[in-house]
């Protein structure tokens, strides 16, 4: 009899230890992510995006005109997705929230200055690039109106780099690498390259608007790229890793949604 009780106690203790371990792991993950967010957002003041008024009028207008069609196509594609698969709205919110979080995190980099990731890769892989043109634009609008970060006149240019070039790069890199390698590696590369190319595009935009007196476009591009793009390399890696993290969660718990999205891809 006492032996039975002992066995029972031991087995129940072992079970609860396992359950607790799992709880601890998920709690730890949440704590890790929150710590990361708190620590990273503690570094003060702005990074990246072309600041308000810092593009000449004609360039500001040019980028607005270039970015608008993508935005409209994105709106239509969001309307289509939410109409055909209302259950995907939550995942859409997740993709938007991911950009929202990552573009608020100003992270120190090897160049001794700070910048932030863009978080557009995840949504582009899940829903296609044009959807991110809308979600990215919302993030940029929020930051330019409330945070004086970026700007309304430069919103078109910032949209083009962060919400259009980045997502499209992610989408193509993902589908290119998916055929050759593992899915996670493809996601990592897609998100990291989307991040990096966003800043390369920003450098191109600035160099186009401000070609150097000697050396012209290339000299300016190298100057701006050395500010933006090099700072961005470790951040791009971080963004790739975080995108894989969220992907892992979705892969474990959001299988029905991912299946629906696979169908979506085959349809279109």
């Amino acid at each position: 009899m006492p032996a039975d009780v002992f066995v029972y106690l031991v087995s129940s203790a072992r079970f609860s230890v396992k359950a607790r371990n799992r709880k601890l792991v998920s709690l730890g993950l949440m704590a890790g992510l929150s710590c990361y967010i708190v620590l990273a957002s503690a570094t003060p003041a702005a990074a990246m995006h072309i600041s308000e008024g810092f593009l000449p009028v004609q360039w500001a207008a040019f980028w607005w005109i270039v970015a608008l069609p993508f935005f409209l196509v994105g709106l239509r594609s969001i309307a289509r997705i939410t109409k055909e698969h209302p259950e995907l709205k939550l995942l859409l919110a997740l993709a938007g929230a991911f950009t929202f979080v990552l573009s608020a995190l100003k992270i120190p980099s090897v160049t001794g200055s700070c910048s932030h990731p863009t978080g557009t890769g995840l949504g582009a892989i899940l829903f296609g690039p044009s959807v991110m043109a809308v979600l990215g634009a919302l993030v940029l609008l929020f930051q330019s109106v409330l945070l004086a970060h970026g700007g309304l006149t430069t919103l078109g240019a910032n949209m083009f780099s962060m919400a259009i070039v980045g997502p499209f790069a992610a989408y193509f890199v993902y589908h290119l690498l998916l055929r050759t390698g593992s899915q996670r590696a493809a996601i990592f590369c897609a998100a990291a390259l989307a991040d990096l190319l966003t800043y390369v595009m920003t450098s191109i935009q600035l160099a186009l608007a401000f070609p150097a007196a000697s050396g012209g476009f290339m000299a300016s591009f190298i100057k701006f790229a050395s500010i933006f793009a090099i700072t961005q390399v470790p951040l791009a890696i971080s963004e790739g890793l975080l995108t894989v993290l969220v992907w892992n969660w979705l892969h474990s718990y959001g299988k029905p949604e991912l299946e629906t999205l696979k169908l979506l891809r085959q349809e279109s």
Partner: protein
Amino acid sequence: MNQKPTKNQQATARQNWLLVGAVVVLAVIPLVFVRGEYGGADGQAEKAISEIEPSYEPWFNHFFEPASGEIESLLFASQAAMGAGVIGYVIGLYKGRSQSQQQSDNKTLE
């Protein structure tokens, strides 16, 4: 089907830890090894613009600017918090859903 985490799930959990760890390490390394002011990259870009074209004046200003660095960091923190809240909500909901799905699968099997 059982309740315990499968080997696959455990491997994913370990991978997730490594991912978070790597991101933290990537952010800390520059702080430890590189001396810098850690200002924003866009501030540097503004400086670069004034070097290339000294006469350039920004032709438009923000309607609203955070009153101080503290307010700005508050707004940035709330941006991150809102996003993180939504991510936690969605992932938590999905996790709960897949667990209750698993439980009802087990019941029908028994």
